[in-house]
């Protein structure tokens, strides 16, 4: 009878040896990381990027990364920053705090980057912030929307306009058009929920239907059935992704509801037309001006990186963030504190998404909005929507 080999005990060392190959290789890589020098004024400037390159939010990651790369390639082709080329080191934050923290640790401690474009998901930014802050590395987040980012740190900026401004514009638009009852369906993610909260603050009781669904839901039929019995003037698909919003609008129209649908800039996505062209026709969106496929930025992006995975707007935000860093480094060098002070002093940077500056918290000021209308397969820019 064959005896079973003991689980622990004397065979232990053999088991260890068999498993040493992969980890030795991994440790080797890690140990080599200890030798990267600090930025010493020569050689390429290292810029870091943190974003969700995989996982559910991967479309944001790809677009923002490509937007940043577009800017960096342009800058390098024009001679770089004071003669030095910029090198972008991209790390995957996977839209989780754990991974973003590791990414930030690597960028700050191993690669010794000068500044970071990131995170994209608010969770990434909030997790990476303490690490960047304590290392005095400036971070500009292109698309983090959570109100918590405002207080995330002295070195933490974002060029994404806060929901407070956008929802004010939206509320103003409602008033102007005589829209008194709004029905909203929100995906339960940090971006969409924060947006809804801000909107509620601005329009109060006008929000007659306010449902929050699990992220990734695509079957809104029963909610639509409830809407049929309700009186409302406008529908607000408040989704995190175009997949959800297209499904919302499609099912709305399937039920024969003809109210106007109006959303935010995440809806300005080419996939909306690919999924539900008929239903999306007539969809309104409040977003920044001049970021569509036909604009200068749009054509450049299309030529170099192809179609955006999500809204072109995200790539434009990252593009502007990269340009901001390049401007800062040209003026004041690569010292974290100097860059920070430069950014706080910015008041009218001419970015693709508008002319803007930063306030004392690192939030953006001065962006303007226009009304986009979906017609014939593309979004066309319309009138300005003021924030008052």
């Amino acid at each position, binding site marked *: 009878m064959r005896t079973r080999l003991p689980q622990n005990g004397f065979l232990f060392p053999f088991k260890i040896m068999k498993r040493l190959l992969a980890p030795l290789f991994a440790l080797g890589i890690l140990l080599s990381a200890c030798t990267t020098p600090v930025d010493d004024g020569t050689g390429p400037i290292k810029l870091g990027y943190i974003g969700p390159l995989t996982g559910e939010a991967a479309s944001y990651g790809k677009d923002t990364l490509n937007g940043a790369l577009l800017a960096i390639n342009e800058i390098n082709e024009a001679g770089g920053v004071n003669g030095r080329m910029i090198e972008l080191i991209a790390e995957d934050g996977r839209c989780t705090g754990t991974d973003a923290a590791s990414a930030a640790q690597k960028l700050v401690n191993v690669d010794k980057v000068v500044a970071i474009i990131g995170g994209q998901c608010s969770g990434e930014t909030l997790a990476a912030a303490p690490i960047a802050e304590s290392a005095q590395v400036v971070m500009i987040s292109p698309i983090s929307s959570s109100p918590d980012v405002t207080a995330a740190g002295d070195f933490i900026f974002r060029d994404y306009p806060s929901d407070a401004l956008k929802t004010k514009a939206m509320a103003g638009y409602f008033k102007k058009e005589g829209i008194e009852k709004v029905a909203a369906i929100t995906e339960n993610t940090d971006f969409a929920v924060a947006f809804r909260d801000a909107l509620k603050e601005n329009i109060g009781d006008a929000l007659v239907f306010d449902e929050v669904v699990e992220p990734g839901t695509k079957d809104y039929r029963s909610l639509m059935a409830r809407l049929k019995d309700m009186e409302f003037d406008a529908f607000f698909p408040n989704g995190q992704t175009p997949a959800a919003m297209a499904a919302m609008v*499609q099912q709305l129209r*399937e039920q024969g509801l003809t109210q106007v649908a109006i959303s935010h800039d995440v809806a300005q996505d080419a996939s909306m037309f690919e*999924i539900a062209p*008929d239903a999306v026709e007539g969809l309104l969106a409040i977003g920044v001006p001049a970021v569509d496929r036909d604009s200068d930025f749009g054509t450049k992006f299309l030529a170099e990186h192809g179609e955006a995975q999500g809204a072109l707007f995200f790539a434009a935000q990252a593009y502007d963030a990269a340009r901001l860093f390049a401007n800062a480094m040209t003026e004041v060098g690569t010292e974290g504190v100097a860059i920070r002070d430069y950014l706080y002093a910015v008041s009218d940077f001419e970015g693709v998404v508008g002319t803007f500056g930063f306030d004392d918290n690192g939030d953006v000021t001065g962006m303007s909005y226009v009304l986009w209308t979906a017609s014939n397969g593309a979004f066309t820019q319309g009138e300005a929507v003021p924030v008052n």
Partner: protein
Amino acid sequence: MTQLIINGLIAGSLAALIAGGLALVYGVLGVFNMALGQMALIGGYCTWWLHQIVGLSLPLSIIGGLTIAAFVSWIAFEIFINPFYKRHRFLPLVTTIALSMILDGLILLFFEEKPRAIMPGVRHSIEVFGARISIEQIVLISFTIMLMMVLAYVLHSTAFGRKVRAVVQHDHAAMSLGIRAPLLHRFLFIMSGVLAGLGGIYLGIDQNLTPVFAFPITIKAYAAIIAGGKGNIWGAIVCAYLIAILEQLVVGVHWFGSFYVPAGYQQTVALLFIILFLLFKPAGMFSTKTRSA
């Protein structure tokens, strides 16, 4: 109310296809296939690719998509299930988790993160008993019902069906009677992959496909199976419809005239269904008592 039931039928048909296939596999092989959602997505994505990119007509694309799904299921069986399921029933559970990760990676590589719709465009809706339903959805529901009837016929009225049922009831006994059980195992697994792919195609037509949709599909299917009783394919199908209708009702009905359940809990219905069932009737709704030991 009618609208809610109809909504439930639409969503239920989707779930029933996937759950039905899973029940067969689970009943026979005792195998948890954690990669089921990914297989559904593969069927849907391949059909999308054939229809929208390659330009084939819809029926051809569907057949093509299902063929690819069958092929992938077959390979999955040979690599991930076959070496393991005879040794212990739980090994395939872990390997199918591995399979699901690999398939997720492949789907991301080939199809990227953009949402895809197989048939974009508004549906042509008609009114039935005061509720709206589109032609496409009617086709889909009736197709599912037809498929179920064909399945019923095959399972209960043909020799082949009897062999399948024999294998479901007792593997070894069937083998001792000369039934080629391993071949039937493969066939059933491929069948479940094809049914899942069909569900994915359905999803791609009715809603849209995103890479992350796999896991919730898998969980819904398991909810239906556990509630329906292990290996009981009709139980699983009935429970799939039941869960779908319940989900629609939970969110759509004005309970006691005073409150609405927050929509965020819609998916939780499926979970609660599993939990309650498992607490009070661990063997499922339609289980039959079998002798053990």
